[in-house]
């Protein structure tokens, strides 16, 4: 176990070093958050009754989404892992005393957390200071906040477990570009990264809410604002945990299968 803790620690501290990247990310996310909120504001002004979420809930959703983007973005992959598979350096990974799945899982987790730690505070502070109605509300209650935290970590787990499938797929396809793009587009849309899931047409929404993508950012962001609360929130967390377990089991089995027939590229 402590091998993985060490791997996590090293990757985490290493990722903390990139200050300029963090600053650039911050600026982008501010701009993006403002734009999105202003667009929604215009829609809401025309007819507030036409929307499935309260405006303040939508605002919280967007601010939190920007603050914790690093945890949930689906177009972000570990370049290193693809390189390892495509170039054949995986030989060296396989002569180390760890399970490759766990090692990659730790690495992704650490990288995403380090990025989020650097970026979330400034965004949250500003979001709490801007004037109404575009201000980020405090969570509905302390209990609700606790649920939000749990749900956020589960969501992160689901995101990483899902990207593991994309990594493993490149054992079979050799080039990872296609897998990566399809997975990113599909999951960003279905996870509610473009617009929150409640905005989908009802039939489609029901389907989308059953998929693993709904167990990513959708749950924690809606739990925070109180859009999902009480018993529903508990079920939501259970739903996330189930998908997390399913994805990990599938990923581990699939990787075992992949490694059995692995051909190391380039001799």
């Amino acid at each position, binding site marked *: 176990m*402590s091998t993985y803790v060490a791997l996590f620690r*090293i990757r985490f501290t290493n990722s903390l070093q990139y200050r300029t990247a963090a600053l650039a990310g911050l600026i982008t996310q501010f701009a993006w958050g403002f734009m999105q909120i202003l667009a929604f504001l215009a829609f809401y002004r025309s007819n507030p009754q036409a929307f499935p979420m309260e405006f303040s809930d939508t605002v919280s959703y967007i601010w939190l989404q920007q603050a914790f983007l690093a945890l949930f973005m689906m177009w972000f992959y570990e370049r290193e892992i693809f390189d390892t598979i495509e170039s054949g350096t995986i030989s060296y990974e*396989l002569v*180390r005393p760890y399970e490759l799945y766990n090692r990659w899982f730790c690495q992704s987790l650490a990288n995403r957390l380090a990025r989020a730690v650097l970026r979330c505070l400034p965004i949250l502070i500003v979001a709490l200071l801007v004037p109404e109605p575009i201000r980020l509300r405090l969570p509905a209650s302390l209990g609700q906040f606790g649920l939000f935290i749990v749900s956020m970590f589960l969501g992160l787990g689901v995101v990483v477990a899902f990207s593991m499938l994309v990594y493993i797929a490149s054992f079979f396809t050799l080039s990872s570009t296609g897998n990566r793009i399809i997975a990113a587009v599909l999951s960003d849309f279905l996870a509610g990264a473009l617009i929150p899931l409640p905005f989908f047409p009802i039939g489609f929404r029901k389907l989308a809410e059953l998929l693993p993508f709904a167990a990513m950012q959708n749950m924690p962001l809606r739990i925070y604002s109180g859009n999902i609360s009480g018993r529903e929130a508990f079920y939501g967390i259970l739903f996330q945990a189930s998908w997390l377990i399913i994805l990990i089991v599938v990923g581990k089995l699939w990787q075992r299968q992949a490694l*059995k027939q*692995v051909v*190391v590229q*380039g001799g």
Partner: protein
Amino acid sequence: MIELQDISKSFRVAKRNPGFASAVKALFSRQYETVHALNEVSFKINKGEMVGYIGPNGAGKSTTIKIMCGILTPDQGSCIINGRIPWQDRVAHVREIGVVFGQRSQLWWDVPVADSFVLLKDVYQVDDRQFQHNLDELVALLDLAELLKTPTRSLSLGQRMRCELAASLLHSPQILFLDEPTIGLDAVSKIAVRQFIKKLNRERGTTVILTTHDMQDIEVLTERIILIGKGRILLDGNLLELKKRFSHEKTLRIEYYGAQPQLVPGMTVIEQQAGRLVIVLETEICTVSQAIAHLSSQVEIIDLSVSGISAEEMVATLYKEYQL
């Protein structure tokens, strides 16, 4: 301690003819060809041995190493190393082995070498005292003091290879696999690497299995060689005995004027250029003086040297003998 029995491994390789038309055709129906990389390979290596594993490109050397490291699963056959089956008990197995793939790097590209070492210490769970002891020793032996603070990307190939060797030994493995450790190195670096490997084997008793194309490596380092070709073990024996087998053979180098001379039985050409000829002579069939008399009767000899066979020539003759 290492025992391979009838290991076979084949790969399926997609093949097509060059050109646009066949590329289009390959979209619809793929032609696969099965390549038998290994064919019933068996050998046994004892603790503390240093073995040279040689063969031409594509003979199956790297595949064998990868199977012994637990990376590849063979199609059939058994392999037991330290009582374990590498690919089934991979994590426990790799704790006790060190590996250097000469063509790849295990060091973290952007950070100082020392950081990579610390990462490996954590990965292998080496305790602080043992790590410091190993590090000090490796730094002294491989002359790494100056390199530890340098990022891997700024190292020369020779410097990097020294660091790679150290990296593979930080956890005091009992077995060291070296897959072409001297590839691309200059003469000085090669000698440093060889001396180090030799010392390691002598002082720590580490079992070393080495693949290489550099016959000097073999000559300096190993007593035993295993020759593999087209996936089969062709020869497994002591280097000295093998040399004795070839001791009735001499290498004859001549420079001459005139047309290329006719050869008689007992002469095998190893190298030929205009005005230069290297011949391996089987002295039981054709003695040295007969050969010289024969050659000088045909051409004007400018320079001539006769020597015992070197490992390089021996292997070249072996490859020819087995038609590799």
